[in-house]
C-alpha cells in the first residue's frame, strides 16, 4: 500500500545557506560578531530580520529566495529547507526615518537617541552606531548644534530630495543590470532596432519608485510619486457590458437554463471522488498501446486467420 505523501512544514533546522558580503563577517577590524536582529520594517510596520555587522558598523537586510520544491545537498547531508538567504547592505536611514517622522509631528528639535526608541524592538538604538547614520542624518533632517550637542528635526522637503536621488541611482542600476521594467513581456534574445523610447524612461522611474517604496511608509511613497512628477496610475475601470434590452411582455421572463442557482451559498461544491493513492499513480501512467487487464479474461474470440 502506498502511503499518502504528506507535506510537513519546515521543521526547525540549525543551518542555512546564506550569501553574505565579506564585510559582514569580517571580524578583524571590529569587535563583536555579526548578529541577526529583528527591527521594525518601515514599509510593513511589522518585524523583519536584519543583520548588524561586526561592531554594528554596517546594517544589512535579510532576504530569502523561497520557492516550492527545493532542497540542498550540503556536503554529505541533505537539507530540506531549500531557501537561499541573501544578506545585503542597507542604508540605516530607511529604518530611522519612521521614528523621525513620528517625533517630527511635534515640530521640535530633538536628540536622535531620544527619538530612535522602540519598546518592541530595543535593538533599534544600535542603528545609531552604524558608521553612516549620524554622518548622513542631514539628508532627512534639519540639524542644530547647541552646546556641542546635535539636535535634529525631520524635514519632508529634504527627505523627498534624498529619496529622489535614491530613485535616480536605482534607475541607473536597473539600466546597467538590464532589468525588464516595462509592462509587457520582453524577449532577452530579440534585439530591437529602435532605440529606447521616452516612455521607457518613465517605466524605469516607476519601477525604481516601486522598489524604493519597499523601504518607506506608504504615505512617503505617495508623496514621492508626486515629487517625481508621476501621476498615480488608475487601474482601468471594468466597463460593464450594457445590459441587453428585454422584450416587453406581461409574462415573467424565465431563463431556459439558470446557471446562477449554482452560485447560491447553499450550493456546496461536491468534493471530487476520492481515489486511493495507488489509483492516482496508475492514472498518471501513459497507457497508449497497452491492453486493458479485462481483455485477458474475456472469452477467446476466434483469431481471424490471415
Amino acid at each position, binding site marked *: *500500500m*502506498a*502511503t499518502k*505523501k*504528506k*507535506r510537513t512544514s519546515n521543521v526547525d533546522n540549525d543551518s*542555512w545557506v546564506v550569501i553574505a558580503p565579506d564585510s559582514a563577517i569580517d571580524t578583524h577590524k571590529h569587535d563583536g560578531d555579526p548578529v*541577526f536582529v*529583528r527591527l521594525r*520594517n518601515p*514599509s*510593513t510596520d*511589522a*518585524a*523583519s*530580520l536584519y543583520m548588524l555587522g561586526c561592531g554594528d558598523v554596517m546594517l544589512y*537586510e*535579510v*532576504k*530569502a*529566495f*523561497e*520557492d*516550492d*520544491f527545493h532542497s540542498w545537498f550540503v556536503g554529505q547531508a*541533505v537539507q530540506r529547507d531549500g531557501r537561499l*538567504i*541573501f544578506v545585503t547592505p542597507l542604508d540605516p536611514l530607511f529604518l530611522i526615518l519612521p521614528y523621525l517622522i513620528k517625533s517630527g509631528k511635534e515640530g521640535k528639535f530633538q536628540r536622535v537617541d531620544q527619538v530612535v526608541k522602540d519598546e518592541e524592538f530595543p535593538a533599534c538604538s544600535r542603528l545609531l552606531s552604524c558608521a553612516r547614520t549620524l554622518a548622513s542624518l542631514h539628508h532627512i533632517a534639519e540639524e542644530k548644534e547647541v552646546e556641542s550637542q546635535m539636535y535634529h528635526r525631520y524635514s519632508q522637503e529634504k527627505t523627498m530630495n534624498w529619496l529622489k536621488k535614491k530613485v535616480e541611482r536605482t534607475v541607473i542600476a536597473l539600466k546597467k543590470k538590464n*532589468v525588464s521594467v516595462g509592462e509587457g513581456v520582453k524577449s532577452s534574445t530579440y534585439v530591437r532596432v529602435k532605440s529606447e523610447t521616452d516612455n521607457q524612461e518613465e517605466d524605469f522611474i516607476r*519601477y525604481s519608485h*516601486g*522598489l524604493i*517604496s*519597499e523601504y518607506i511608509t506608504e504615505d512617503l511613497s505617495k508623496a514621492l510619486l508626486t515629487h517625481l512628477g508621476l501621476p498615480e496610475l488608475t487601474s482601468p475601470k*471594468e466597463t460593464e457590458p450594457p445590459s441587453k434590452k428585454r422584450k416587453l411582455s406581461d409574462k415573467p421572463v424565465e431563463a431556459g437554463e439558470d*446557471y*446562477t442557482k*449554482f*452560485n447560491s451559498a447553499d450550493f456546496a*461544491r461536491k*468534493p*471530487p471522488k476520492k481515489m486511493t*493513492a495507488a489509483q*492516482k*499513480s496508475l492514472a*498518471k*501512467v*501513459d*497507457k*497508449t*498501446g*497497452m*491492453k486493458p487487464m479485462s481483455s485477458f479474461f474475456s472469452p477467446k474470440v476466434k483469431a481471424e486467420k490471415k
Partner: protein
Amino acid sequence: MDLSPFEDDNSVSCRLVSEIPEVCKTEDCCLGIDEAGRGPVLGPMVYGICFCPLSRKEELKDLKVADSKTLTEAERENLFEKLDEAKSYVGWALQILSPNTISTCMLRRTKYNLNALSHDTAIDLVQYALDSGVQLKEIYVDTVGPADKYEHKLSQRFPGIQVTVRPKADSLFPVVSAASICAKVSDQSSAGFKSFLFLNSLAIRVVPLFSLFPDPKTKAWLLKYLDPVFGYPQFVRFSWSTAQTLMDSKAVNVHWDDDEEDGEKAAQRQSNKSMLSYFSVSAGGNDQNATHQAHRFFTERRLKSLNTL
C-alpha cells in the same frame, strides 16, 4: 558472451553487434526481433535482432534454436556459440537498455512508457541493419502490445518490407528464436551479476538472480538496500511499482513539482478561480488584497523578507 562495453558504463544503454556477413548485403534477408528482461524490477532490458538470408532460413532450424524459454542457461550459451559460429550467414545486434534508462524514460515529466520504449528500440535496431547494408525483405516480431497496431506502425516506418507481428513469434519463426537467444544470453550474463558495478560505488554480488517478476526474495533484497534519501542503486528500475511502493513507505518523501495534488488544493495553490465564479454577478473588484503585496522585483525573483530564521 563479451559484455564489456556495457559494463564500462551501465548508466546508459549500449549496443553490441556482430559483423555483418557479406552474403546479407547481396541476398534478400529476413530479420527477427525479440526482447528479454521486460518484467524484472532489477537489471537491464535487452533487445536482440538476428538476420540471415531468406535462402538459408531453414539452416537456422537445423541449429535447433527452438523457443528459448524451454532451454537451460547452459544450452542457451551453447546455441549462442553455434550462432556465432554461423557468422558466415547469420548476423545479430543487441541493444541493452540499462535499468537507469528505463527509470528515467518512464518517470519523465512527459511519460514515455515501456511499450513506446520497446517499439523505438526495435525500430532503431532494424534501422541499424538497413544502414549496414542488409537487404531486408521480411521482419518477424514477437508482439509488444496489440499486434495489429504494432505491425501497422512498423510497416509505416519501413515501407517495402513485409512485417509480421505475432504473439509467440519466438516459437514460430527460427529467426526470432535466434534473436531471443541473443537477447536472453546477454540479459542473463549481465543480470546474473557476473560483474555489475554500480556507479554509486555499491558493488553487490548477489548470486543467482531472482525470478522474472518481483518475488519475496527480490523484495527482501530491495528492502535491504533501500537508502532513505537516494532510494536504490542504479541497478533497480525505479519506475516499477515494487520499487515505488517500498520507497513511498520506507524512504524519505520527496516532492516534485509535477506531483499531483488533490484538485481543490492544487487550484488553491495556483489561485485558480472556480469556473462557477464567472457566472455570479460581479461584486466589483473584490479581489483587492488587504495584505501588503511586495514589489514585482521581489516577487518575480521569489525573494521574501524574513521575520525569523
